[in-house]
């Protein structure tokens, strides 16, 4: 198992937003996370992305217990990348945005150029390499954010509603890219969504969250969403 979450809770003040007795995530699979607004989907992704620390419970990642100290989490974050529901791009060109994670990992300039070219090509944004990031449309921003995440070759990709507010063309492009990288690179993917057709066309497994609890199996999830 890639992740094993046991007895995980997350509280904000006295409010419990997440309460998961057990959750297992297998390497190389695509998972859909369904649930109504406020169910705790983003909080769960933040915890899986090591961006948020659970209030109680343990996480095993690659069979090792996660120590929630900053230096430990920072190393884990190099393997897990999360894409926000409304991703934000840094000021500057598309090239500079995709380069960010690679520069941090001290990858040589020559290699960086090759990776950036490849990933932008993968998401169909190679014509925008020198475009100013803040001038891109919503769909283009989402695709550049995906390229920026893929450039660092993550083990796990967490996408918070990757297709929200996108037109059909951009939705299809994103779904196809996610499928492709899962097949080619065996990247584990978890995405949240409200669209059932995405679940059926993309996910190997489905989790359903309601009021912070995993409540249903895949079959039940379909019923609940319908």
């Amino acid at each position: 198992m890639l992740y094993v979450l046991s007895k995980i809770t997350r509280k904000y003040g006295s409010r419990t937003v997440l309460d998961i007795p057990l959750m297992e995530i297998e390497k190389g699979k695509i998972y859909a996370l369904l649930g109504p607004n406020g169910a705790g989907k983003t909080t769960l992704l933040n915890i899986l992305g090591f961006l948020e620390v659970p209030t109680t419970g343990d996480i095993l990642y690659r069979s090792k217990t996660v120590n929630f100290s900053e230096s430990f989490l920072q190393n884990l974050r190099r393997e897990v990348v999360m894409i926000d529901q409304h991703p934000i791009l840094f000021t500057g060109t598309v090239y500079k945005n995709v380069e960010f994670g690679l520069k941090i990992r001290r990858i040589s300039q020559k290699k960086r150029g090759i990776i950036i070219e490849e990933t932008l090509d993968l998401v169909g944004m190679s014509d925008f390499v020198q475009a100013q990031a803040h001038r891109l449309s919503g769909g283009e921003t989402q695709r550049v954010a995906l390229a920026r995440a893929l450039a660092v070759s993550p083990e796990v990709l967490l996408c918070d509603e990757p297709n929200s507010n996108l037109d059909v063309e951009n939705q299809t492009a994103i779904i196809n890219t996610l499928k492709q990288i899962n097949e080619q690179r065996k990247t584990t993917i978890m995405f949240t969504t409200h669209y059932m057709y995405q679940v059926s066309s993309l996910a190997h497994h489905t989790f359903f969250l309601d009021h912070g609890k995993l409540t249903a199996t895949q079959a039940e999830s379909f019923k609940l969403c319908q």
Partner: protein
Amino acid sequence: MELLVDSFLSAILLIFSLDTEVLSIVWVSLKVSGISTFFASLMGIPLGFLIAYGSFKGKRILIIFLNTMLALPTVVIGLFVYSFISRRSILGSLDLLYTQKAIVIGQIILILPVVATLTIAAISRIDERYRKTAMTLGANRWQTACVIFREARFGIVAAVIAAFGRVIAEVGISMMLGGNAKGFTRTMTTAMALEYDKGEFILAVALGIILLVLSFGINLIFNFFQGRTRA
């Protein structure tokens, strides 16, 4: 009205004649204000950044304190610094009183809160997603801070410009700690006050015009950077 028009025309001629006294006064003003803005920025930007970026006990109190310091009158700062650098006081042996250094010290105290509070405002306006994005892409704390600093750069430059605008136009500190010595600590504002006392309006009006033009330029740049921040 006639006096004003005559003084204005004579002042314009004085400016375009590149009078050495006018140039000397403008130079002292720009030099002293530039140095104090530089040092205040050197301290105020990191201070503002740490306050805005960090989470610690007493943060709100510190921000309230800095905001209160914004309203500190220049004469109070003058008096305060004077009590430390006058001949008989604790730092009297350093002979700082009535020097440009004394003005710089006072002006730093005046604008440090300006730089810090405007930096806090600039950093606080930065979308939380920048921090999260930098972290998820593997950035450490320092690299994440650099991302936020970079995104807030126009707001921070605007803070520095606003601080410069504040010191170039102040009179209390320059008068009390500089002593208005000709060619040495005489700034545009202290010279204007002196010329007014003497009833000599031409130099005062000439310096007033220069100060207004400078303030206009500063505000123009300030607005430009504020516009970039909003964009």
